[in-house]
């Protein structure tokens, strides 16, 4: 992997600024064997070439006395432009006093007039370019010991350098990751894991390159590559996987790739790879695709999510978050009876309008901010139940959602008990919903928490039942009071036999566990009748009501 050779072989660009054509040509003639040369005949032209940014220069050779704009002004302008201060300047002069003044203005070296012998000029240029390039590299390990790819800092520096020397060539930023790598480490041991990392690096490098490419392993099982644009990467993941199977003997290793094509070179190198990584992470665990190309829409989505994350505190403080209530009806008797409600959050953003919970709940679940939302909902709901009890003389139990992160909150119990106390409630007033998949994540941990809460008198509903991965064995051992059947089964039960069978199965499991079932997402009478016939106890859905704000929910309580 001789990437450095590739970088070293790139021709550096030198800008010669002199108003005398003959001087420019003599210098250019000397330097053109080793460098790519551009010319400017006065300071103004030079500045516009420098500021244009299309391919950076590695060195500026600057005459001082020139019409239109002289060399001193150029030095001042370079010093005032952060993007240009990294380019060394050699001043060409025959005047001693001018040397002092140019040094003060940031010149790095001098070439006297008449010019020295070509060897001397070449050596000076080479030395100063080398010096600047070394200066800009953080002195740390250059290569990752394991894979031979660059470390993060060096990689970024070299990406910048490639931009400098290949100018306008379109480039792609590619981020690859090994799916469930930690599992490989656990299953086969660290040594084997390291071999997977090595072989993946080698396979990616040779399949994406091996010419004109640089690579890095900035972190664990992430790989970054910078290479000339290609239209398709379609075959790469499979080829890499085939090589891994052949060389390591572990079948079924999956890699995924995020690609930011024809990068915008005005953005810093790390941003480009952030985009590619975002694409790569977006398809984590998605077994239908292994490649995602970063798009403008993703960027917009990204910015939108950033905005939501940024605005959440203000939303809480300004009470832009509103808790709605959706009634649940018991259908066992002659007439459906209101038996409880679920508290659901809505976000009325002052600028973006109503934001769908589908937009922010999964987002906040992924970054832990959901805990803030949960606390807000619990407090609001508890206070609301308290008010109803006081004002209407009665209320219905309200269930609130508990997220995965809440389960690990050591003060969880105290928090709920505090809410009961503050609002004069009993544990029967507040029910807690835990999603089935949370059980699958850490069954024992969750069981312990749920047991403690039940001992305090709280009732626990298992939410989204049927979509998680609970085994029958686990279901029988976990403590729950209600099963909430996922709405997907209800939606499809009159359309396909399989969903109908699953509804029956869930109802049978509930019967076995001796707990009632809540069917969510019920929309029409036919569904209600069918569910009643099948023995379902409780219905939640648009058939009875959509989630409504507390003032509207009052009417449901009054009607009983």
């Amino acid at each position, binding site marked *: 992997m001789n990437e450095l050779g590739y970088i070293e072989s790139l021709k550096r660009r030198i800008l010669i600024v002199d108003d005398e054509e003959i001087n420019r040509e003599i210098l250019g*003639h000397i330097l053109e064997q080793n460098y790519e040369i551009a010319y400017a005949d006065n300071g103004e032209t030079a500045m516009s070439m420098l500021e244009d940014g299309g391919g950076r220069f590695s060195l500026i050779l600057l005459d001082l006395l020139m019409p239109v704009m002289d060399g001193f002004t150029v030095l001042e302008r370079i010093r005032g432009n952060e993007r240009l201060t990294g380019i060394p300047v050699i001043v060409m002069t025959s005047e001693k006093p001018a040397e002092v003044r140019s040094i003060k203005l940031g010149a790095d070296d001098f070439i006297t007039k*008449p010019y020295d012998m070509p060897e001397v000029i070449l050596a000076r240029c080479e030395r100063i370019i080398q010096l600047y390039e070394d200066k800009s590299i953080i002195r740390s390990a250059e290569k990752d010991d394991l894979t031979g790819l660059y470390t993060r800092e060096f990689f970024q520096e070299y990406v910048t350098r490639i931009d400098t020397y290949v100018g306008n060539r379109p480039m792609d930023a590619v981020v690859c990751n090994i799916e469930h790598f930690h599992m490989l480490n656990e299953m086969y041991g660290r040594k084997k894991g390291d071999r997977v990392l090595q072989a993946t690096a080698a396979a990616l490098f040779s399949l994406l390159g091996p010419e004109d490419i640089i690579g890095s392993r900035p972190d664990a099982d992430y790989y970054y590559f910078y290479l000339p644009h290609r239209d398709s990467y379609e075959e790469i993941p499979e080829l890499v996987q085939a090589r891994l199977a052949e060389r390591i003997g572990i079948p079924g290793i999956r890699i995924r790739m995020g690609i930011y094509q024809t990068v915008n070179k005005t953005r810093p190198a790390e941003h480009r790879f952030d985009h590619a990584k975002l694409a790569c992470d977006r398809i984590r665990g998605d077994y239908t695709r292994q490649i995602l190309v970063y798009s403008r829409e993703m960027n917009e989505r990204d910015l939108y999510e950033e905005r939501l994350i940024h605005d959440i505190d203000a939303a809480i403080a300004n009470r832009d978050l509103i808790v709605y209530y959706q009634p649940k009806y018991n259908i066992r008797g002659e007439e459906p009876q209101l038996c409880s409600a679920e508290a659901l959050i809505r976000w009325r953003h002052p600028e973006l309008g109503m934001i769908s919970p589908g937009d922010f709940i999964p987002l906040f679940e992924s970054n832990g901010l959901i805990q803030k939302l949960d606390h807000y909902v619990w407090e609001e709901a508890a206070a609301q139940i308290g008010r109803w009890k006081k004002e209407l003389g009665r209320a219905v139990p309200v269930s609130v959602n508990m997220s995965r992160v809440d389960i690990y909150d050591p003060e969880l119990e105290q928090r709920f008990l505090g809410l009961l106390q503050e609002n004069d409630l009993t544990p029967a007033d507040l029910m807690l919903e835990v999603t089935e998949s949370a059980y699958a994540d850490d069954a024992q941990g969750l069981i312990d928490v749920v047991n403690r809460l039940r001992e305090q008198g709280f009732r626990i509903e298992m939410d989204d039942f049927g979509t998680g991965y609970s085994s029958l064995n686990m279901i029988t051992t976990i403590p729950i009071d209600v099963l909430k059947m996922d709405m997907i089964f209800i939606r499809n039960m009159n359309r396909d036999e399989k969903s109908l069978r699953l509804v029956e199965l869930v109802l049978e499991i509930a019967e076995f566990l001796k707990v009632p079932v809540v069917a969510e997402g019920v929309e029409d009478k036919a569904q209600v009748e069918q569910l009643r016939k099948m023995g379902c106890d409780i219905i939640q859905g648009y058939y009875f009501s959509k989630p409504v704000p507390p003032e509207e929910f009052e009417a449901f309580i009054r009607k009983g």
Partner: protein
Amino acid sequence: MATMEDLRAYGANVDEGLARCINNEGFYLKMIGKAVEDSSFEDLEKAIEVKDYAQAFELAHALKGVLANLALTPLHDPVCEMVELLRSKTDTDYSSYLERIRTKKAELESLLQ
């Protein structure tokens, strides 16, 4: 076409000038050809005529640099002397310098024919 011998006989420091052109005779001659066509010579005469010594200094200074690089000593010397006088804006009779420059330039031009 001038040879290196012609240029030596003329008084140019050919070794030095040629070395600066990485010993490429064709390139060296091409640059000398450009130098004699440089309008700065005429502009310098005009500036002296109207006693615009600041402008004359800039022109002479630029010529001096080019002639030094090409090691055209017979032309470089009078230009160099003028530069020093013009630097301090000396109001003197420059005609003898201009005459020397004209003569040496003409000599060079005839060599290049």
